[in-house]
């Protein structure tokens, strides 16, 4: 149970030049093909052993969702085969088919029926579902009165009420509050321990590296790599770097973030990169790793003074660290149009695990309020992972070195 085998899988969408050509193709016998095949996924082969956890990575449009949809069975492959053993549960679109006018309980029953369960089965599972969802009395109120987080909780609880043999998870899981996120992730982990095969799509490097046994990289509808998660993620990052940040921009939009670039434009930022010790571009750094933030700036008009500042923000937008060349007494003066400047800020990555973004500003003085040449949010997004240091708590790494002295309790001294 829990075995997945995919052989020669491909998916093409039909594209007809006009609406009439489909009709013509259907009605005229022996007529030539009038549509063009648009391949979104081609020649995908892999096998997942029971109990294995596999991550699927790739930029948007690489075919990840299409692959998952075919494995769950909502979309039919154009060619190739998928063999699944065991019961499949998919956490792709949670809360699909919830009817606002019915109570949470009624909707839970309905959602269970959509998964092929009978009413009696669901009734038996209901106490569990209620306990896990933790929405209290709201379970008997109409779903239209729910917050989206509550809907999520209920939907997740129903979808995972029974341990499936194969669990398919899309990154959509990152909704809901932090407490429930952890709770749901724990449940997924416990399923895995119990032998559930796991298939996860995520952009989150640490998620993939911490859970998965292997990862599959999709690129342009082809399977480029199937290897250890670290190897695949490194290759993936190199692939991203090769595209000079273009894809990184897509990633940003994907996370719901909007990059804001504003300013008068006398000077502009050409590129922002995070480099490791050997000068290679990375998008994930280890805690304690020496890194360099490299910013390339272009001068478009003559300006008398230029200050570059950067600020590292966490996932919630809180400033972690910010500095500018004015405060470092390194402001440049008398710049000519056409000049190019490379700034390198070297530091040791002292942040905790997580996602961070870098905002940048080009201005005349300390504050960008005076003259703002360019202000750029999300100039760069990077991850911090922790494989080298001990697993610590918090957003900054202080690298405490510990010395402990034990004092022997000498009974003899105290003896009267």
């Amino acid at each position, binding site marked *: 149970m829990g075995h997945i085998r995919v052989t020669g899988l491909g998916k093409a969408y039909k594209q007809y030049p006009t*609406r009439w050509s489909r009709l013509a193709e259907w009605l005229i016998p022996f007529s030539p093909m009038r549509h063009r095949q648009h391949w979104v996924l081609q020649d995908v082969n892999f096998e997942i052993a029971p109990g294995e956890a596999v991550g699927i990575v790739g930029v948007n449009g690489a075919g990840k969702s299409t692959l998952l949809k075919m494995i769950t069975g*909502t979309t039919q492959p154009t060619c190739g085969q998928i063999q699944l053993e065991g019961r499949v549960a998919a956490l792709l679109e949670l809360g*699909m088919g919830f009817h606002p*006018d019915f109570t949470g309980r009624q909707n839970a029953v*309905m959602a269970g029926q*959509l998964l092929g369960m009978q*009413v009696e089965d669901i009734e038996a599972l209901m106490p569990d579902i209620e306990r896990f969802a933790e929405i209290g009395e709201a379970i008997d109120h109409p779903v239209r009165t729910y917050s989206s987080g509550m809907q999520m909780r209920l939907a997740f609880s129903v979808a995972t009420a029974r341990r499936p043999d194969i669990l398919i998870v899309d990154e959509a899981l990152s909704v809901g509050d932090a407490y429930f996120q952890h709770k749901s992730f724990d449940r997924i982990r416990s399923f895995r321990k119990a032998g559930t095969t796991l298939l996860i799509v995520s952009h989150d490097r640490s998620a993939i590296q911490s859970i998965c046994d292997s990862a599959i990289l999709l690129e342009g509808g082809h399977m480029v790599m199937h290897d250890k998660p670290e190897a695949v993620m490194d290759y993936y990052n190199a692939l991203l770097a090769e595209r000079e940040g273009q894809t990184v921009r897509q990633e940003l939009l994907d996370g719901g973030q909007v990059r804001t670039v504003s300013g008068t434009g006398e000077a502009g930022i050409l590129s922002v990169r995070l480099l490791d010790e050997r000068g290679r571009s990375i998008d994930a750094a280890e805690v304690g790793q020496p890194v360099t933030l490299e910013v390339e700036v272009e001068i478009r008009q003559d300006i008398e003074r230029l200050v570059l500042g950067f600020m590292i923000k966490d996932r919630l937008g809180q400033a972690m660290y910010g500095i500018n060349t004015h405060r470092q007494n390194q402001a440049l003066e008398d710049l000519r149009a056409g000049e190019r400047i490379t700034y390198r800020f070297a530091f040791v990555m002292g942040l905790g695990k997580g996602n961070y973004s870098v905002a940048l500003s080009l201005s005349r003085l300390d504050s960008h309020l005076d003259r703002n040449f360019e202000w750029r949010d999300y100039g760069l997004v990077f991850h911090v992972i922790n494989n080298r240091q001990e697993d610590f708590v918090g957003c900054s790494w202080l690298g405490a070195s510990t010395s402990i002295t034990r004092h022997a309790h000498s009974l003899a001294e105290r003896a009267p």
Partner: protein
Amino acid sequence: MLLSLYRSLHDYRGFILGSVKREFQARYRNSLFGALWTVLNPLSMIIVYTVIFSHIMRARLPGVDDGMAYSVYLCAGLLTWGLFSEITLRSQNMFLENANLLKKISFPRLCLPVIVLLNAGINFAIIIGLFLGFLLISGRWPGMALLALVPLLALQVLFCAGLGMILGVLNVFFRDVGQLFAICLQFWFWLTPIVYPLSILPEWVQRLLQLNPLTNLIGSYQNLFLYGQWPVWSSLLPIFVIGLLLCAIGLRLFRRRVGEMVDEL
């Protein structure tokens, strides 16, 4: 093939029955009169037609004198036509309306037409039940011939389901089908002797209307309820054959296009 179809539907019986129940509840959930609206709708139509045709236009059925007879005649045709139009209209939109479900969740797609049929069946059962009650009270109970209602309805459902399936699949790929069929239904209604008796038409038009497979079916209902006559089974052979044919074509179309359908939604 049919066995595996049946088995997958059987596994999802909970979903099918649940959907039917839920749809029925959803329709009346926030209304005060609830299921009464299912009745009031056709009732108002019957009153309008009865008033206009029976009283204002002085239409009388040949050989029957009282005005009530016309109402019974009208009901026999109108209620069963209602079943026909409900199934076909709902069927042609069943895949489009459930696009979200089809795209996101994997379940036997054939559940959807079954849900449509069951829902239409329930609505029809309510109305026909009231109609039968009315016949009983007014002393027009058709007698033993009422047993013929079962095969007649089975025949009608066969025809509707086949036609509905074809329309439903085609409508996904060509949205014109839905628009076109709504117009066709208008003409079809008036080209079927429901509001008027077939016998008031000229001979050649009567022969022409025989080409309409519903003419004899609706006629059978009318004779059944009005005169308590058993249907002339041979006259229903064409609609039976056409119904089988439509079902075969519909299923074939469905099986061939079901995968492509999800891509189009």
